[in-house]
């Protein structure tokens, strides 16, 4: 980002018009041509009006009946989902990425539900780090999370243990802006007390939320101080247009009145919108780049170079040249393929062996049965033979006896 030199440095008076006063315009024109990117993350339990607020902030239907917001899709574990939308206004193009965390804080046991969020933020920083370290850096998309809106439930008491835990873990990774959700639940007095209590607890736990930078302009500083007094911002979202006193406003219709979204007396929505989009979007990106990203980068690089031995997951990604890295990747890939091939061959061999064995076994079985049957038959045959012999014997005996009887009879007849 471009900063003018401080005024106390010696200023030379120019003798004529040089023309570099036109520099900001050139920067402006180039930026407009390039377009802008902004990634906004929303975190909070389901039912706190996150989707409605996003729709209200950017006046688009990012979430609608066809593509319902995260709360309408019940999730068993915390997911991190992103949706991109291209918004154009006055010739300026903004690629807005909204990152949702459905399922956050919704389970009975919410331990570590912040881990997927941390992983996401870290992975985007890592992507950027790798892109930065590449040889060819022509297109470097910036998908880092520039701002995290954390939704606090309007209990009126204080922060919940989950709120404290989450903010403590994320305040040095991303710009955290806490918001009081569904602020139309609270009366003005309750809201004041609630805000005071939250800020007190934030200080107690040493949570570093996003701080608005002081400018040199006194007027701006006054505004900034006013915003700071209102933190955390109490917001109400709605895209429903209602007529109040002849005017069309966005709001929520109750039997006792209409809560107007853009009315400063009713809630801090306009403050949030102005701050997020109209005045501090660039600063959020700068802080992300200069503070949070640098934090991440130095931690990552220190881990790699410190021991000489790589302690990070990705091996030697930053100490080798990209070409060598590509070569290594290719080799790894080839080896992996070979290994897979070998494994598949092994499996194949094993299966063939198994099949052969099975066939052998069934053959043996058949043999055995054949033998068995043969023996049975032989036994039966012998048996029959035996029986026949016995029968023959008997027959012979009987015939012999008959013959004797016949002989006796003949003898008798001879006698008489």
């Amino acid at each position, binding site marked *: 980002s471009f900063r003018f030199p401080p005024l106390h440095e010696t200023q030379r008076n120019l003798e004529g018009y040089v023309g570099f006063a036109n520099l900001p315009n050139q920067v402006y024109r180039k930026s407009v041509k390039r377009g802008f990117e902004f990634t906004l993350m929303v975190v909070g*339990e*389901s*039912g*706190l009006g996150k989707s409605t607020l996003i729709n209200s902030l950017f006046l688009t239907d990012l979430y609608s009946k066809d593509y319902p917001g995260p*709360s*309408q899709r*019940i999730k068993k574990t915390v997911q991190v989902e992103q949706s991109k939308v291209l918004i154009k206004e006055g010739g300026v193009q903004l690629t807005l990425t909204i990152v949702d965390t459905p399922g956050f804080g*919704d*389970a*009975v*046991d*919410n*331990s570590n539900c912040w881990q997927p969020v941390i992983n996401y933020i870290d992975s985007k920083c890592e992507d950027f780090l790798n892109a930065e370290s590449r040889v060819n850096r022509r297109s470097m998309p910036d998908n880092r999370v520039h701002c995290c809106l954390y939704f606090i*439930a*309007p*209990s*009126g*008491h*204080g922060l*919940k*243990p*989950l709120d404290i*835990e989450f903010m403590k873990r994320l305040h040095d990774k991303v710009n955290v802006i806490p918001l009081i959700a*569904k602020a*139309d*639940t609270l*009366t*003005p007095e309750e809201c004041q*007390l*609630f805000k005071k*209590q939250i800020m007190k607890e934030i200080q107690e736990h040493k949570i570093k939320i996003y701080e608005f930078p002081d400018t040199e302009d006194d007027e701006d500083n006054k505004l900034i101080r006013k915003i700071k007094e209102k933190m955390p911002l109490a917001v109400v979202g709605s895209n429903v247009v209602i007529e109040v006193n002849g005017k069309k406003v966005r709001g*929520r*219709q*109750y*039997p*006792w*009145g*209409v*809560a*107007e979204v853009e*009315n400063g*007396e*009713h809630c801090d929505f306009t403050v949030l919108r102005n701050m997020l989009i109209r005045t501090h979007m660039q600063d959020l990106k700068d802080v992300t780049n200069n503070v949070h990203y640098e934090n991440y980068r130095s931690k990552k690089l220190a881990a790699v170079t410190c021991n000489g031995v790589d302690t990070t997951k990705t091996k030697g990604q930053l100490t080798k040249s990209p070409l060598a890295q590509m070569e290594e990747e290719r080799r790894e890939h080839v080896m992996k393929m070979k290994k897979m091939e070998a494994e598949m061959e092994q499996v194949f061999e094993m299966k063939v062996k198994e099949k052969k064995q099975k066939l052998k076994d069934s053959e043996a079985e058949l043999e055995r049965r054949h033998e068995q049957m043969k023996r049975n038959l032989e036994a039966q045959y012998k048996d029959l033979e035996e029986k026949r012999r016995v029968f023959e014997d008997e027959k012979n005996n009987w015939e012999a006896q008959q013959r004797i009887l016949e002989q006796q009879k003949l003898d008798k007849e001879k006698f008489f």
Partner: protein
Amino acid sequence: IGNPVVGCGGSTLLGYIGIDTIIEQMRKKTMKTGFEFNIMVVGHSGLGKSTLVNTLFKSQVSRKSAGWARDEKIPKTVEIKSVSHVIEEGGVKMKLTVVDTPGFGDQINNDNCWEPISKYINEQFEKFLKEEVNITRKKRIPDTRVHCCIYFISPTGHTLRQLDMEFMKRLSHSVNIIPVIAKADTMTIEERQEFKQRVRKELEMSGIEFYPQKEFDDDMEDKSDNDKIRETMPFAVVGSDKEYQVNNKRVLGRKTAWGIVEVENPNHCEFAQLRDFLIRSHLQDLKEVTHNIHYETYRAKRLNDNGGLHPISTNGTHDSNL
């Protein structure tokens, strides 16, 4: 008086006896002895439980009687804190005990946070059972059993949370659960209707029966009355102990920048319905269902488990069989 009274067998009595004065006698007795009512409130912190109880009984009866104590730390485990008051109206004395459950649902890990509550409810049943089983019993057994458990549902507008389902599933068989939608001034009327429908459907699909339970409807009249109530439940309530002037009337309400939410206005919220239901029509029924059904279930289980109980004498020299 003067109408022929028909006796049970269908025979006409020959004069006025005065059996119907028994109702008056019961009323006199009740007024003299007064009665007890124990109500438990469950829900994670910040849902307006204490405020609602104060509003219901029009007096500072909850644990946090001095408005809401913002700087009270959330306890690390669920605690059971009960506070008793004697309130009187029209000559009738009521000993009201409010049982609060701070810490429920407030931790990061809320597994089993319903157990201390379940334990407390069973402990009260146990106390009563021990007294009942004594040889020399007290004239009136002190009744600390939980007659009604008001469960506060967070007004997300979407569905019930997992914790809500778990709690109600596990406790709907030991206590009368009355679910209410807390801080109902968060939702517009349409959002409220949709939310209620979704909640009722979810409860039905999971087989969770809240009070008044369908199976305990005595007769057709009861059933039709209770059906109407069941169709409106869970009641969307708003509580407040502050008064404001609206149309020359003093009303309990909440003053926002866009209007005053009137607690007792049926167009604004269903607090009046809850109060009438809880106190003016079903108070006695809550006690009866607790005594005849929940307590009996507990008692039967205990006796079956032990294979029979011997009554114990009050001097406690014998070991209890319990």
